[in-house]
């Protein structure tokens, strides 16, 4: 991105040689829109003449807009005729008041020349690379021979172009530890390290991919994207029971559910022709939105907010697009129009949930011994409720309901209805009948069923059923459920994103700049989900392989994993990204295990992460991949690793969130009685994935190591390095307990007469799977010998759990 000073310098230089160099060297060449023109438009024009502001009625975002007359009656761009184009006249104007960009430096001679030639050549727009299908390029030829002929060929070709060489393979203990932490989030076993050192790397990779810990590790990544939490958010931030969905994610990764199916089930598992309770459970992905349980809120306002969040999250997770911009206005830079946002909104606008603290609708499940009875009761309750609805769905009842809505102005009448329905009821009733949607009318009938005289015996019957139901302690997981045909909502454009100000009505549709929905695709979430994973979608596979790449290498091929748009960063290896995307979709048939196996067995991944001062100077962020990845472990990996090497880790999977020790005062919420009850059993040592995640009081050691608070989708954790992190691993009781256990474990497993130095070496070995160097062992032994008895060894363990080489994936 050129800064303004450099532009000035360029302008001066160019002015001096303009006539000579520009006309002689560049005038014949075809101007490339994406690399030459768009950067100028983005940086200098679109701020005022783009998707947000259309100053003077002029936008240069889309070709049809740029070729249309502005408010002045003049045409910004006349293809083939720069001299007739108002744009040229204005950027060349001598009067600063007339000249564009207004109140800013003029365009440089070079920029003006690019625009002139581009317009003269016909002013063709090209789509941004990410909106074009990935190219099916074969891996490039390279001078040297290195690696697998796939990933490695792309990486090597770039290195050769830069005059660099790849690094040798990492030491086997380092590599074993790297791949185990990457694939399972846990350190390897000593046996696995041994097998890698004996040349059995690929077999160990397969073993790690088959380890149930694999699913737990990758679920961790997915939960950030899904904004998973065990609480509802907002003021009270009460508990939410959605952990069965988290377990579904773990199982899905472990079963290597193809990613296209993984996608469709989460977005539309309830709409599948072969829907089951498992696919319905998957839809809880989009019930991780926050519920506002504060008194007096407008449920429709917060329902709209959840739909908006579902649109934004879907687009960020699968399309790597900052679609959220278009909620209020056209996208400032990318080809998405304001009304198109609501076309996507319409897909998500037909679910039955509406910001109720009860989390309605839910999928109920029961512990093993209670399942039969529980399912019988759920069916019986549903049956009674169906009969209640039937009882209020007669013409006579229509009249009764109409009369009732007339009386609702009377607080006594309103008061008969449950408190949490009253606001919504008054809102619906406040609307003229002609303005009420199907969903509004269904809601009135639904509420009336709860107070009608005609349903009283049925309600009594239901009450009996509930009395038997609650003692079974049902787990009620919030899920998506489509509204029945008669109760659909109409979708309108929200003017400036305000749900109260309705623009034109819109139908479900994908943005016009993207490939269209197939004609026979259902216009619902299922159609959208299948479109996202269809071959024609240019973004999904790229965005996803980039996410997995980023998890392994610390930086994505596109560094802005959340933004593949024109304002995101360009890929470091564009051909590799495309090749991997197609490979993921075609060769691996969306198998994540297949993709990860391909990456971790590449020579690129297996490189040593050691770096020379020269290479560090040349490529500080390792964008060229002339060395292996080396970066600090995630919050989850740090906790799990400490528990694992100390022998404390519980490998128990699944279930309700747990409460390991945390400092007092973290859960301080005046509106909620929810208490942190520290586990004293196995749950104290469960993997970080299972720690209770409360949005307003997240687990402190997780926060210290850059975990997000999970209010909205987060694609990327920005890694930091702070003294607070040192305090966590030095002093957090969870890490202190792990250090003590590690010391005890080593002592237990060592020969009875082992000296302090031998024991210190054993602690290091237990954590890092190699022998310490003499210098390192000297330092550890001094610690071991300076404190009496077992205290010395405990401190050694404390030191080892804090070493850079231990908290880092090398």
């Amino acid at each position, binding site marked *: 991105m*050129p800064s303004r000073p450099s532009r000035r310098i360029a302008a001066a230089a160019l002015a001096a040689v303009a006539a000579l160099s520009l006309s002689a060297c560049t005038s014949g060449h075809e101007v490339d829109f994406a690399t030459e023109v768009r950067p100028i438009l983005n940086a200098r024009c679109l701020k005022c003449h783009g998707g947000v502001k259309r100053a003077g009625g002029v936008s240069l975002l889309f070709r049809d807009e740029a070729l249309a007359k502005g408010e002045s009656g003049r045409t910004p761009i006349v293809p083939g005729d720069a001299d007739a184009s108002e744009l040229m006249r204005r950027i060349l104007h001598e009067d600063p008041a007339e000249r564009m960009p207004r109140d800013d430096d003029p365009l440089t001679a070079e920029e003006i020349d690019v625009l002139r030639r581009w317009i003269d050549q016909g002013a063709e727009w090209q789509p941004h690379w990410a909106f074009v299908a990935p190219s099916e390029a074969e891996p490039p030829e390279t001078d040297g021979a290195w690696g697998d002929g796939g990933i490695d060929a792309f990486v090597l070709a770039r290195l050769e172009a830069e005059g660099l060489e790849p690094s040798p393979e990492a030491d086997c203990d380092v590599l074993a530890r790297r791949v185990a932490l990457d694939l399972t989030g846990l350190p390897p076993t000593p046996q696995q390290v041994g097998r890698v050192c004996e040349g059995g790397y690929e077999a160990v990779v397969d073993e790690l991919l088959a380890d149930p810990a694999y699913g737990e590790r990758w679920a961790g990544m997915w939960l950030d994207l899904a904004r998973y939490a065990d609480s509802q958010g907002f003021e009270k931030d009460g508990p939410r029971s959605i952990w069965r969905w988290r377990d579904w994610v773990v199982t899905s990764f472990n079963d290597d559910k193809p990613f296209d199916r993984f996608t469709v089930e989460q977005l539309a598992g309830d709409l599948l022709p072969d829907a089951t309770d498992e696919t319905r459970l998957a839809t809880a992905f989009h019930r991780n939105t926050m519920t506002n349980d504060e008194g007096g809120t407008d449920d429709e306002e917060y329902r709209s907010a959840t739909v908006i969040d579902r649109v934004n999250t879907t687009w960020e997770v699968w399309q790597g697009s900052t679609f959220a911009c278009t909620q209020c206005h056209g996208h400032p830079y990318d080809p998405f129009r304001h009304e198109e946002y609501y076309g996507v909104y319409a897909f998500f606008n037909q679910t039955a949930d509406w910001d109720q603290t009860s989390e309605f609708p839910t999928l109920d499940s029961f512990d093993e011994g209670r399942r039969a009875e529980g399912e019988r009761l759920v069916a019986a309750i549903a049956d009674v409720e169906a009969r209640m609805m039937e009882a209020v769905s007669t013409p006579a009842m229509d009249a009764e309901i109409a009369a009732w809505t007339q009386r609702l102005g009377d607080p006594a009448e309103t008061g008969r209805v449950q408190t949490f329905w009253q606001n919504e009821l008054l809102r619906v009733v406040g609307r003229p009948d002609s303005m009420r949607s199907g969903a509004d009318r269904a809601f009135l009938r639904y509420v009336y069923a709860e107070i009608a005289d005609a349903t009283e015996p049925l309600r009594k019957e239901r009450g009996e059923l509930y009395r038997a139901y609650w003692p079974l302690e049902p787990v009620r997981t919030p899920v998506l459920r489509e509204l029945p045909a008669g109760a659909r909502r109409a979708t309108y454009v929200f003017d400036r994103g305000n749900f109260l100000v309705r623009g034109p009505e819109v139908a479900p549709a994908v943005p016009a700049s993207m490939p269209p929905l197939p004609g026979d695709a259902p216009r619902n979430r299922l159609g959208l989900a299948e479109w996202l994973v269809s071959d024609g979608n240019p973004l999904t596979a790229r965005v996803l392989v980039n996410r997995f790449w980023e998890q392994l290498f610390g930086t994505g091929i596109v560094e802005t994993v959340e933004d593949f748009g024109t304002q995101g960063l360009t890929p470091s290896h564009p051909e590799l990204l495309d090749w991997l995307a197609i490979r993921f979709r075609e060769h691996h048939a969306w198998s994540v295990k297949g993709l990860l196996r391909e990456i971790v067995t590449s020579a690129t991944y297996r490189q040593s992460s050691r770096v020379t*001062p020269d290479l*560090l100077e040349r490529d500080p962020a390792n964008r060229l991949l002339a060395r292996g990845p080396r970066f600090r472990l995630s919050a989850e990996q740090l906790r799990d690793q400490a528990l694992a090497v100390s022998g404390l880790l519980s490998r128990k999977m699944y279930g309700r969130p747990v409460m390991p020790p945390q*400092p007092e005062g973290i859960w301080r919420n005046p509106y909620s009685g929810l208490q942190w009850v520290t586990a004293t059993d196995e749950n104290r040592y469960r993997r970080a994935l299972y720690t209770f995640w409360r949005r307003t009081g997240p687990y402190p050691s997780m926060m210290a190591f850059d975990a997000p608070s999970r209010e909205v989708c987060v694609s990327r954790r*920005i890694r930091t390095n702070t003294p607070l992190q040192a305090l966590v691993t030095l002093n957090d009781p969870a890490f202190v307990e792990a250090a003590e256990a590690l010391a005890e474990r080593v002592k237990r497993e060592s020969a009875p007469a082992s000296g302090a130095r031998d024991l210190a070496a054993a602690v290091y070995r237990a954590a890092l799977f190699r022998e310490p160097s003499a210098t390192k062992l000297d330092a550890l032994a001094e610690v071991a010998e300076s*404190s009496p008895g077992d205290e010395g060894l405990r401190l050694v363990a404390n030191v080892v759990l*804090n070493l850079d080489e231990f908290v*880092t994936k090398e």
Partner: protein
Amino acid sequence: MTRPEHERRLALQAMTRRHFLGTFSTGVGAAALATFLGAERVFAGTGTGATGTGTAGGSLGAAADPLLPRAPHFAPRAKRVIFLHMAGAPSQLELFDYKPELQRLNGQLCPESLLEGKRFAFIKGVPKMLGPQATFRRRGQSGAWISDHLPHLAEVADEITFLKAMHSDQFNHAPAQLLMHTGSPRLGRPSMGSWAVYGLGTENRNLPGFVVLLSGANQPDAGASVYGSGFLPTIYQGVQCRSEGDPVLFLSDPEGVDREERARTIEAIARINREHHAEVGDPEILTRIAQYELAFRMQMEVPDAMNLAEEPEWVHAMYGTEPGKTSFANNSLLARRLVERGVRFVNLFHWGWDSHGAGASEALNVGFLDRCRETDRAAAALIADLKQRGLLDETLVVWGGEFGRTPMLENRSGQDNPFVGRDHHNECYTMWMAGGGVKRGFTWGETDEIGYQAVSGRVHVHDLQATILHLLGFDHERLVFPFQGRNFRLTDVSGRVVREILA
């Protein structure tokens, strides 16, 4: 505090630097030695100056100790900054920008001409004008207009420079807060405090150079990115300190580990990490070594710095502090204690100023008044207290939100609403500065008769940043860091020092 905890803390404080130094048999290098001998003396005169000649992600080793106190480009007027950020954007029209004409127009429909081409966060259609929801008086010798919602601030009016025509590019909270603190509305740029410590180093190696204090549990809208270090080394990021409970989580050593043992463990960690750095070459390891040393020092000094109970009763009365509570008042007093100890940059975040009028807590006639009460006494006390300690001359205090609010009433429901509010407005609003080289009793910038548009003395957020850096002794165009092929700076590609307000 429980009895054993209290004894523990006393023991901690009793551990003198000299004593601690004695526990090092082999030493952990220049950085640690500096801690115990006094960084200033050891490194006096060896600074290289912050001219941005370092390389991105390059070595931060012993040759260029990243926290070394350094001389800026020219003699600074301020050595430290306390930035009081009122997250949510307080209404200038109820505090400083007195508009009798707006009172006259109260309840009338906004003329269409004012709405043309304008964007609002929430206002739709044609709103009504809303007169000032406050009474105003001229205060001090300078005669600054201050509303009666801020009776205490009125007492120190003559210490303050008011910037009445601030403006921002952004009118949503998170991007606007990011712009205010990092110079860019997008994530990933270093914050002002990070730039300050990068440029100046820190005067007290035992405390973080850049401290963040939040009133209440809420982060600013843009989260911790507002005080992140962006592409600068992470050693420069803001450290959040809690004003209740353990001031910094996990500050206390585990049971049974005494200070000498902790010193030995930190030393061993550093030795092994240095050896490892020699093997693998990753500069991040050097940062980690520095962070462990800082953690150790923080364990000693933070509890002392954060202990408000040490303050005499009259100081508590002055600020309205209650030790042990989380409040803006406590944080203000903490800010004074921190700058007294050499902390370079203190960011306070108060929240709840987003007075849309959609509910009581965000209404100008309810929640807004609470916000004024929560902050007025302490903000005024901070100025007075710094002054009486002789610190105000070299400490810059900045107060403000991320943008301002409209002269129009926001009525989202369109119905009768007992709550009164205003929408986001980024074209003019008021901030103020005091101490550290700015004029006393001065007002810069003027808005039109309804407080809708700036008429003169406009100050963009980048101009404010350029001015703050100038007061710290930097040419904002030269305090740079190379990243992704070009030099980046706090003020992006603009920024003008507001020379008119310099004392």
